[in-house]
């Protein structure tokens, strides 16, 4: 994308993990003809880039450009010039004088007394908060009688550490901003939410909302990295307003990898079980390494406990979660939002517990899972609802049969170079953050639908599609309700000015919530069509029926059994225009009444080469309960992708830091950030996906989500398979060939 007269922006990034800027000299860059932007030239607003929570649950510690950077890569200035090359040269001509401050790169170190304070003061809504021990926010929850855990026959307590992962989405964070003649701006950006982008830009720059138009842009992937408004957007707006010219700002991959990552977590988990195979209770301490800023740390603390307690029935549960600042890239949501991390821990320990009490790990799961009729609060303690559809049992029993689970190998019997193992793991994710009562999370959307004068339909929605086919699913839902083919429903390019509010495409809500809004407007429009048809046919609107006529390629409204009383959509639309009845159209907001979990389960077979430590995938069976499957191929595709991402999380990915200079060890090079290619994954013939036969009463046509549940159980499952092959458990991710050889040396010499 480009505009005439457009400038190219580049961001000046802090080379220090923690520093104060004493002076910045931009004269060299300006002498080259570049437009520059310094911290003094942007509004002095402290904000939170993610506006999904209500204000009283939103912690703020960000600036558009800061004079006190807290991580290597934080934006401290910017330039815009006629070309990217010129902008780069101008960037290199800026001189900055820093006072370098102490820094911390580990959450546990960061909390110790005497550690350098990263933020002195932050805001919760508009209240100033003092940060103590670098803990940005915390949450404690206890339910049940602690005696339950004390009485348990077997108790295990362990510490686990997850990896730091980069989203590696297709396009780097990018934005185009065009200043408009009326003082407003138009914005095209990589975002998961156009309306929250507008909200934040309004908050920062004070431009009236109607004069900020944020346009939907096709994305190739995001995985949660643009639920918040990415820093480039706010910087580019500053450059465009100052230069009064369109500005394009696109991060390089090296900048992008220093812009966002998943939350690295340290868990101390204690779980107890009785000999009868029932869980007694547990205690979880969670330390979230949030990096240098809060994006959604507080709601995540709620979700981590929610994910934990909603997997299995725990009569007693005790939780302390702390979000800890470190001088690292700010962490944000990444497909699963903490669920893959905690599920790895829980599923690893469930296997270990089952072994201790002498129950098969699969039976142990069947004994304890949370299912239909149970209270569910996956999205945190403020989002509770009752589970109305559940395919857990079907997933586990059908999968077990397919892989002959009960005859899997015994790790103690294997001694050769290549050893094989099967693992099982289960999980779920919420579909949206809906509930019968309001919570601290905003979750509603909306849509508009109108019948055109030829009987086709235009569908307008603010909901972003990240390349997952979400809008495609909406079209199928609308078409199904209106009895027309999908090609008769058009998706209209839209922006904040032409759509009603939708919170964000996240939380696996695209089909369940967004599709719910689509269904609601389709039902309203159908009602109007019935009214019009009733007038034309001299029939009662509620009595007419609708069918699709393949010959005429039209939906036909008819009075059953009465010859000649039928009319096509096209005729209805034409008549409505000629007789001035108006347009059959509807615009609606929609809040879903529930937060149904979509359940998933995996069976994975691996082969470990004990000489090189390489783990090879042999076979995967994945079961998913997503209610009615709206688009089977795309849904299976979500499982394929979720599995690949989970596999990568388990065996490959990490972003270690170099404490000497505070930068990533890989120096931002994506070539040194390993993810599997298609050549590293197993053949799709060896990856079987099946869907459980369920129906979600609150979902559009019975549908639930799939996006995140497809990923969540994978790390636990693969880790359990590796354990089954080697008889070794790992408490740190990723499980690399190097770590495998080290562990084997320790075990076998």
């Amino acid at each position: 994308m480009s505009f005439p007269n457009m400038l190219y922006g580049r961001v000046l990034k802090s080379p220090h993990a923690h520093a104060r800027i004493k002076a910045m000299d931009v004269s060299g860059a300006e002498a080259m003809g570049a437009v520059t932007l310094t911290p003094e030239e942007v509004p002095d607003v402290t904000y939170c880039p993610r506006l999904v929570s209500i204000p009283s649950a939103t912690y703020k510690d960000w600036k558009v450009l800061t004079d006190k950077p807290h991580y290597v890569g934080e934006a401290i200035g910017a330039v815009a010039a006629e070309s990217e090359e010129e902008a780069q040269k101008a960037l290199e001509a800026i001189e900055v004088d820093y006072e370098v401050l102490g820094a911390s790169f580990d959450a546990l170190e960061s909390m110790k007394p005497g550690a350098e304070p990263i933020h002195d003061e932050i805001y919760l809504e508009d209240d100033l908060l003092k940060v103590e021990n670098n803990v940005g926010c915390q949450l404690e929850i206890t339910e049940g009688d602690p005696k339950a855990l004390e009485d348990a026959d077997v108790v295990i307590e362990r510490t686990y550490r997850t990896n730091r992962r980069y989203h590696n989405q297709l396009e780097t964070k990018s934005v185009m901003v065009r200043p408009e003649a009326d003082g407003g701006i138009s914005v095209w950006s990589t975002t998961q939410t156009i309306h929250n982008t507008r909200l934040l830009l309004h908050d920062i720059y004070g431009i009236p909302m109607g004069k900020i138009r944020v346009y939907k842009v096709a994305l190739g992937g995001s995985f949660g990295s643009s639920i918040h408004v990415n820093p480039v957007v706010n910087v580019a707006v500053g450059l465009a307003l100052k230069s009064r010219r369109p500005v394009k700002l696109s991060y390089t991959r090296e900048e992008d990898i220093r812009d966002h990552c998943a939350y690295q977590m340290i868990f101390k988990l204690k779980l107890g079980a009785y000999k009868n195979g029932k869980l007694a209770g547990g205690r979880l301490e969670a330390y979230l390494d949030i990096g240098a800023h809060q994006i959604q740390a507080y709601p995540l603390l709620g979700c981590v406990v929610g994910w934990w307690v909603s997997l299995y029935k725990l009569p007693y549960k005790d939780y302390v979660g702390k979000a800890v600042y470190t001088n690292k890239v700010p962490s944000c949501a990444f497909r699963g939002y903490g669920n893959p991390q905690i599920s790895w821990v829980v599923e690893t320990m469930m296997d270990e517990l089952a072994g201790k009490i002498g129950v098969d790990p699969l039976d142990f799961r069947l004994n304890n899972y949370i299912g239909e009729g149970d209270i569910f609060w996956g999205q945190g303690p403020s989002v509770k609802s009752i589970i109305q559809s559940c395919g857990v049992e079907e997933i586990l029993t059908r999968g077990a049969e397919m892989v002959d689970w009960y005859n899997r190998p015994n790790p103690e019997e294997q001694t050769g170079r290549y050893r094989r193992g099967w693992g099982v793991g289960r999980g779920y994710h919420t579909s949206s953050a809906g509930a019968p009562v309001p919570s601290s999370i905003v979750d509603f959307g909306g849509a508009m639908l109108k019948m055109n004068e030829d009987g086709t339909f235009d569908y307008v929605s603010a909901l972003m599609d990240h390349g997952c086919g979400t809008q495609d699913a909406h079209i199928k839902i609308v078409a199904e309700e209106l009895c027309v083919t999908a090609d008769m429903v058009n998706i209209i390019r839209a922006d904040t000015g032409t759509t009603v509010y939708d919170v964000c495409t996240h939380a696996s809500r695209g089909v369940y919530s967004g599709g719910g809004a689509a269904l609601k407007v389709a039902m309203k429009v159908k009602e109007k069509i019935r009214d019009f048809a009733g007038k034309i046919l001299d029939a009662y609107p509620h009595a007419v029926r609708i069918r699709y006529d393949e010959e005429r390629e039209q939906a036909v409204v008819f009075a059953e059994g009465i010859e000649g009383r039928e009319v096509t959509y096209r005729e209805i639309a034409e008549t409505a225009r000629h007789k001035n009845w108006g347009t059959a159209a509807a615009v609606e907001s929609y809040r879903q009444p529930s937060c149904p979990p979509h359940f998933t389960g995996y069976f994975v077979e691996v082969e470990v080469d004990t000489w090189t430590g390489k783990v090879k995938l042999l076979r995967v069976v994945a079961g998913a309960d997503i209610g009615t499957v709206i688009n089977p191929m795309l849904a299976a595709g979500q499982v394929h992708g979720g599995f690949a991402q989970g596999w990568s999380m388990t065996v490959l990915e990490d972003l270690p830091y170099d404490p000497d200079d505070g930068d990533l060890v890989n120096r931002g090079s994506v070539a040194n950030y390993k993810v599997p290619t298609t050549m590293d994954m197993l053949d799709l013939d060896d990856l079987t996906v099946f869907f459980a036969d369920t129906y979600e009463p609150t979902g559009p046509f019975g549908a639930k989500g799939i996006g995140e549940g497809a990923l969540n159980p994978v790390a636990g499952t693969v880790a359990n398979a590796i354990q089954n092959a080697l008889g070794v458990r790992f408490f740190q991710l990723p499980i690399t060939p190097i770590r495998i050889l080290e562990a084997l040396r320790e075990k076998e010499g």
Partner: protein
Amino acid sequence: MTINKVNTHIVPIEFEYHAPGSLDEAVALLEKYGEDAKILAGGTDLIPHMKQRKTEPKHIVNIKKIPELACIEETPDGIKIGALAKLRAVELSPQIREKVPMLSEAAGSIGSVQIRNLGTIGGNICNASPSADMATALMALEATVHVYGKDGAKEYPIAEFFQGRSDVSLERGELLTGFTVPYPPEGAGSAFEKVGWTTFDIATVNVAAVLTLKGGKIDHCSIALGACSPAPIKVALAEEILKGKEPTDEVLEEAMEFVAACVEPRKRWRRAPPEYRRRSSQALAMDAVGRAVEQARRHQ
């Protein structure tokens, strides 16, 4: 700290571009500009290095217009491969597949098809990365290197070409023009093995082996190891152990000890610690020798 400078997207430096049509023209340019000039062949290393500002050449000498450099042909001394031959061409060449299949195997293990369609065998060698897969394969095959300079052509064994990490024995004004890969002895078996974190990845360790059997015993034997020292090396001690012996598990295991002993740890070895390289180099050498023996048995 280079965070505001290094990336893989923008080349903000200015340079003069040359596209000589003959070897003599190319050599004259390289002689004239010396350190200021860089050779562009496939560009899979040079262009990223320029974006990363590891090199900021004032002159780029594109040698792709020199026709004779891309050849793959059979000669009495062996297969002649021009420095500009694409890795993909080396992988797919019917002559190479028939006469020195291990070289094709090694070429096919590099990066992705897209990278192999750009990258050249000469570039893979001249970049002198310790983990270059072509280097290890050519070492085991005991290839000859052809160099052209202002004094004309010269040639020497590939082992003498590597001067250490990122350093090759090319003088100012000299250009690598290609290789002659001698035909392995009649009935030879050969194999190439590597371990990396993904198929796309460069090698953490690679091993190449060529051998023949005589009366069930190993006769000719050549083993090369890459990514474990500043340049790929021949594992002479292991070769000696194997020669004249039946390749039993015990013999192989004994020989592999010498492979592991060749691992020469670097100060900053980020990809894998020495212990991992020792263990996996043994494993890969076992695999490579084992596969070569099987192949040689089939040829008997």
